[in-house]
């Protein structure tokens, strides 16, 4: 567990603001809740009256008020436009978020996903009426298999973590098929892994054993061998890893895992670093999920939807879940019920079709040449940032090349009175979303920066200059810039302690006062 806390309440240090009558500051507007401005009888949708019929609701009709406020269309547009303007977005600025791959979301992809031939398609229509959709899923699956050098794909997982669960379930089914489900109950996970890795393994009853990263930030083959044994079902590695480094001993580790009778799961969150440069299948990976909302540009949407298809090696292909698309000559069919060793089903229907359209459009747009260029630019951009900051900011594994993300720790801030958190919040005032902070856990006060290939050199240069300015300011003892930040965002630092101690998770109608 993560036992390292940090301050979660604002301190007294805050600058006074000039007030206004509305609470607005020019274009930055305060916006009430729909429950405070809407009306139960207002509506932004005109619906014709229902034909008079004899009700077939039986005794189940709803009586009484639900309490749902309505807004007319102008009111709704204003409400949500005002809310939107309080958000940072990749369209507006760089997101240096390590392990998130916040690249540009192409607008062509939005247009194509909305074609009625894709968007207005029910998953259970007769197969003869959805051949184009099945062809698309098949085409994307083939492209992903080509990119990864793997043999079979499960397209149905709905996000990366869901893909990890799918991988774990497939492995467990394979182990059970060998009769070893009672003996192989441990999954090896590096201490630097993303929390979804151990969480996914634990969901189906595996216990998690940590395998340490070596002094150079990668897992040593000997450490893996020492941790492997007859009780181990799988080792889960991220490659490149969460420190932004390629796991150089991965081939040896995969061999060791296979020799020990275990499977090798790869967390594909960082795939953006290596597309067209190497293939996980060539490195010995048995299963890997792919985050379409990272490497393949589908938009993050403020928290999803994503998609997490999983690719498998020969060792595991037979156990992959239903459904899968099968090509029969010119036609496509859907296998919806297990007819072999498939372990079962991960979700209703066939996967995140809307994200498949977008991802395939991205792949077709880039092509083999563009995909490789994107990975090279992503790695170059991260190293450019790293090399431009390494004289000021300390890195846990020394001044060495990284892949698509650069990891710093807070050692350099030791005597400054400025924490990683403070530094991140001060970036907000400069117009930047903070980088990933306090992850991975093995770096103290970690700062993980992943610029992606979508940034121009001018954008990278300004980002670098800004971080240098902030870093020198912190080292010069200008604490105020940091400890009270952000000063200029729509909100100052929040009282997260209060949010957790006295959770208020919904609006509740206030009780009427005695006068009402």
């Amino acid at each position: 567990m993560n036992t390292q806390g940090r301050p979660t309440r604002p301190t007294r240090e805050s600058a006074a603001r000039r007030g206004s009558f509305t609470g607005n500051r020019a274009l930055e507007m305060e916006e009430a809740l729909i429950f405070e401005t809407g009306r139960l009888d207002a509506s932004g949708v005109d619906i014709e009256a229902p034909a008079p019929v004899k009700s077939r609701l039986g005794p189940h009709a709803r009586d009484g008020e639900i309490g749902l406020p309505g807004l007319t269309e102008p009111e709704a547009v204003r409400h949500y436009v005002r809310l939107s303007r309080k958000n940072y977005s990749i369209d507006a600025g760089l997101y240096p978020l390590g392990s998130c791959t916040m690249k540009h979301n192409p607008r062509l992809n939005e247009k194509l996903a909305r074609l009625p031939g894709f968007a207005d398609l029910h998953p259970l229509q007769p197969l003869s009426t959805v051949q184009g959709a099945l062809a698309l899923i098949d085409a994307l699956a083939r492209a992903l298999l080509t990119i990864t050098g793997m043999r079979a794909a499960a397209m149905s997982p709905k996000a990366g973590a869901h893909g990890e669960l799918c991988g774990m379930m497939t492995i467990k089914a394979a182990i059970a098929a060998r009769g070893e489900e009672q003996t192989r109950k441990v999954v090896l996970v590096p201490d630097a892994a993303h929390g979804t890795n151990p969480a996914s393994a634990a969901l189906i009853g595996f216990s998690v054993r940590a395998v340490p990263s070596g002094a150079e930030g990668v897992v040593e083959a000997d450490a893996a061998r020492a941790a492997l044994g007859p009780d181990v079902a799988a080792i889960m590695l991220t490659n490149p890893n969460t420190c932004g480094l390629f796991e150089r001993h991965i081939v040896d580790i995969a061999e060791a895992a296979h020799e020990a009778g275990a499977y090798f799961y790869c967390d594909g969150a960082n795939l953006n670093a290596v597309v067209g440069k190497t293939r996980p299948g060539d490195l010995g990976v048995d299963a890997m999920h792919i985050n379409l909302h990272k490497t393949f540009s589908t938009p993050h949407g403020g928290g999803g939807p994503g998609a997490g298809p999983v690719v498998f090696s020969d060792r595991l292909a037979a156990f992959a879940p239903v459904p899968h698309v099968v090509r029969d000559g010119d036609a496509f069919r859907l296998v919806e019920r297990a007819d072999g060793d498939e372990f079962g089903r991960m979700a209703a229907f066939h996967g995140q079709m809307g994200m498949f359209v977008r991802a395939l459009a991205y792949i077709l747009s880039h092509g083999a040449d563009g995909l490789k260029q994107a990975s090279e630019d992503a790695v170059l951009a991260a190293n450019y940032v790293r090399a431009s900051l390494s004289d000021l900011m300390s890195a846990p594994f020394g001044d060495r090349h990284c892949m698509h993300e650069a990891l710093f720790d807070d050692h350099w801030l030791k005597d400054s009175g400025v924490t990683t958190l403070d530094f991140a919040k001060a970036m907000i005032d400069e117009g930047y979303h903070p980088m990933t902070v306090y992850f991975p856990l093995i770096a103290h006060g970690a700062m993980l920066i992943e610029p992606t290939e979508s940034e121009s050199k001018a954008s990278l240069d300004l980002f670098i200059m800004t971080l240098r300015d902030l870093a020198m300011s912190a080292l010069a003892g200008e604490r105020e810039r940091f400890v009270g930040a952000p000063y200029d965002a729509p909100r100052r630092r929040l009282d997260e302690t209060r949010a957790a101690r006295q959770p208020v998770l919904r609006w509740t109608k206030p009780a009427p006062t005695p006068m009402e």
Partner: protein
Amino acid sequence: MSEIRYTKDHEYLRVDGDVGAVGVSDHAQRQLGDVVFVELPTLGAKFAKGAGAAVVESVKAASDVFAPVSGEVVAVNAEVDRQPGLINEDALGRGWIFKLKLADLSELDALLSQADYDAFLETLA
């Protein structure tokens, strides 16, 4: 006079006769940040030394509280349930979490004295 002893996992045990109050050390509460919730053990639960007995949560972190010695839970601190911040304000006093009836007094010998714990903290810095 009740004596306070510590574990290397930053729990403390304040013994009074054959009952010991268990909490987390001042160092631990500072590491965690503002405590927002405590998962208390059930009365009557029996724990072997080192078993996970409670969980202390802050906003960004969660920390297991392991039983410093074997015993049976004879009291839980309702105050800390209502006001988790007590663990920050007064970890060693009103911020106690649960009380154990000690099963094996000899286990006390393995615990750290205040001086030993302070020295241990120095090595972590």
